[in-house]
């Protein structure tokens, strides 16, 4: 049998779509309700479902150094922390324990919470930890939360996509797509 692991995977994948799977069809409404609830909770500034408030503060602070707030929004404004909370409670739940362990080791290197350090001190400490597996996973969650679809809890108001100029969610396009093919089309036309 595909077994529990497969069922769980299919169930979690139902959060986006897996309408072709009978299993996912059954679980879809439930997952949609969950996703909706997560977004509503986020909008209401609610507490977290998976992480404690202290854990969330540290993840939020790390994410905010990976993609900092500059003259454009960063991970904090994109609600990356809500993505992380939701991911670790669902499709990354298998990693929750190892990530919590990583967090404890990460925190053990400093006195007090990472989130209470100045940005300068945060950067200095991160520079000593940015090759660790823990950092790699937080970095991945930050990128996924910043650039993934907002239905996963992050990328609020599509700020991640606006930052880099990605309009991929809009679907259909007609040429020219960019500067050089537009120039090429003009030249072709002039040459006729």
């Amino acid at each position, binding site marked *: *049998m*595909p*077994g529990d*692991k*497969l069922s769980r*995977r*299919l169930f*979690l*994948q139902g*959060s*986006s*779509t*897996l*309408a*072709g*799977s*009978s299993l996912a069809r059954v679980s879809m409404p439930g997952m949609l309700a969950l996703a909706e609830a997560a977004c509503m909770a986020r909008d209401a500034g609610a507490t977290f479902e998976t992480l404690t408030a202290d854990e969330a503060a540290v993840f939020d602070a790390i994410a905010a*150094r*990976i*993609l*900092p707030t*500059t003259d*454009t929004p*960063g991970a904090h404004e994109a609600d990356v922390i809500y993505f992380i909370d939701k991911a670790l409670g669902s*499709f990354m739940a*298998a990693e929750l324990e190892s990530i919590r362990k990583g967090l404890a080791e990460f925190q053990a290197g400093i006195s007090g919470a990472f989130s209470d350090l100045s940005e300068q001190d945060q*950067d200095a400490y*991160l520079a000593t930890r*940015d090759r660790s597996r823990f950092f790699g996973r937080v*970095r*991945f969650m930050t*990128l*996924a939360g*910043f*650039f*993934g*679809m907002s239905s*996963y809890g992050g990328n609020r108001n599509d700020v*991640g*996509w606006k*930052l*880099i*100029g*990605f*309009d*991929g*969610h809009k*679907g*259909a*396009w*007609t*040429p*020219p*797509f*960019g*500067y*050089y*093919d537009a*120039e*090429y089309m003009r030249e072709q036309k002039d040459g006729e």
Partner: protein
Amino acid sequence: MANEGSVKFATREAVDFVIVGSGSAGGILAKELSTAGFDVVVFEQGPYRKAEDFTHDEISVLYLNELLGGGPEVHQQTFRHHESEVAKVSEFENPAWYAQTVGGSSAHFSANFWRLRESDFKERSLLGPISGTNFADWPISYEELEPYYTKVDWEIGVSGAPGPYDAPRSKPFPVPPMPIKSAGVLMERGARKLGLRAQPGPLAILSRPHNGRAACSNCGFCMDFGCEVGAKSSTLVTMIPLAEASGHCEIRSECAVYRLETDKNGKVSEVLYYDADGNEQSQKAKAVIVSGNGAETARLLLSSASDSHPVGLANSSGFVGRNLMFNSHSIAMGVFEHPLNEYKGIQVSRLLHEFYESDPSRGFYGGGGIEARSLLGATPIRYADFALPPGIPTWGAMFKDFLASSFNHQITMTNSATSLAQDSNNITLDPTHKDAWGRPSIRVTYRDHPDDLATVKFLQDRAMELLDAAGATQSWRYGIHGQSGGAHLLGTCRMGNDPASSVVDRYHRSHDIKNLFVCDGSSLVTSGRGQPTMTIMALAFRAAEHIAAAAKANNI
């Protein structure tokens, strides 16, 4: 009149054909044989997704392996570079990449559709032997396969225009090339400066409506994603509907085949599988065609060992699973002054085949193509994850600034090339690990041949020159390391005239078992230069013709 999609065959009565796999080869064989009047059951281990089930969800598709049936956590495959190592389960990605969905990998591929050339079929004769490899000629020629390439062009739907180095074609492309993208313009510009000739990339994507299907909407989600408008010419939208409409074809999705049984006459008689609920089932068949892919097909034949077939079915040569070829790869990245917006449209609008042929003066065997490709720039998470030049930190304000300024300004020159067939690159059954259904895990052992690495290094040098000539403001390359996975799963049940050194004959019938056929990427004798699906589909049309003729003549 047949009721579309409704035919169900009894498991205890032998159908004319069972086809294992609904992908590039399986989908075509299903359509050809069912419309010829044979009763066919097609097994697909993945679900029956339709165009409307496909999304633009990068997290689900690229990171949760939605179309791959889940990642290593679910379908544990194992990998090692050499047989002296204990193969391990990779953490995030399985070494053999293929879609588990009706239509197989033709549903999620980028749809680059190169034909092989005349030389590909007889390179061993042209260039001589290469020691330590199983480099060999094919048992068929380009001329023999050409009519079937043309059949693919027209029945599957391929857009393109003839290139300066293409092998001769008997009929024009059915639809013109896809619109040129900025990356293609820049490749043409760079090539012209260097005295080279770029050409439109042939693609199994419709630039205009064809065979009742709509044209591409340029949404940009080709590579690794399913096509929501059905413009990508997968077997899901081209062949499977015709097979089902014949009233002679049942697609049994979410059913995973784990063993083929033979009868006392030495013929394949039964196909054992797990149904959608995980229960063991069996389908009787008069003949079986295995079209899984170069990894799944080898696993199934090896898993079907019995007292009368101690090393697996169709394996008297010992060649089942051997000679795995991924095609070798390298990339070079460039950033340009003005926006390209490569996330829009197809992956490849222009490519360069100047270095396709092996040239002994280079000092090594091999050749390949260079594509101006969106690759990492097609989707934002993967871009942010991987597309960093040397000197840009992986986090912080400089990282963020780089992403913001480069995402729409970059192209990736993607080089794909030959892989040499070697005994030491292979698919075997993992002795320890199992997949989600309890089948022995696919164990991949692979190390690129030094000539393959030299070839992609050579192409990467040319790609850097192209970027420079095209006016890149910044360009960089990635180190060339041996591959630890691949989406092209080739060579593991090669075709040949000699039963001692091949698994199937020139018509895809196994040398050992008269009613067992194998047709998919595993049939390829050499790897070609990097885009194998066109050839897999042409082989399937050709195989179907011969298998149908044999069945009609009672010769199975």
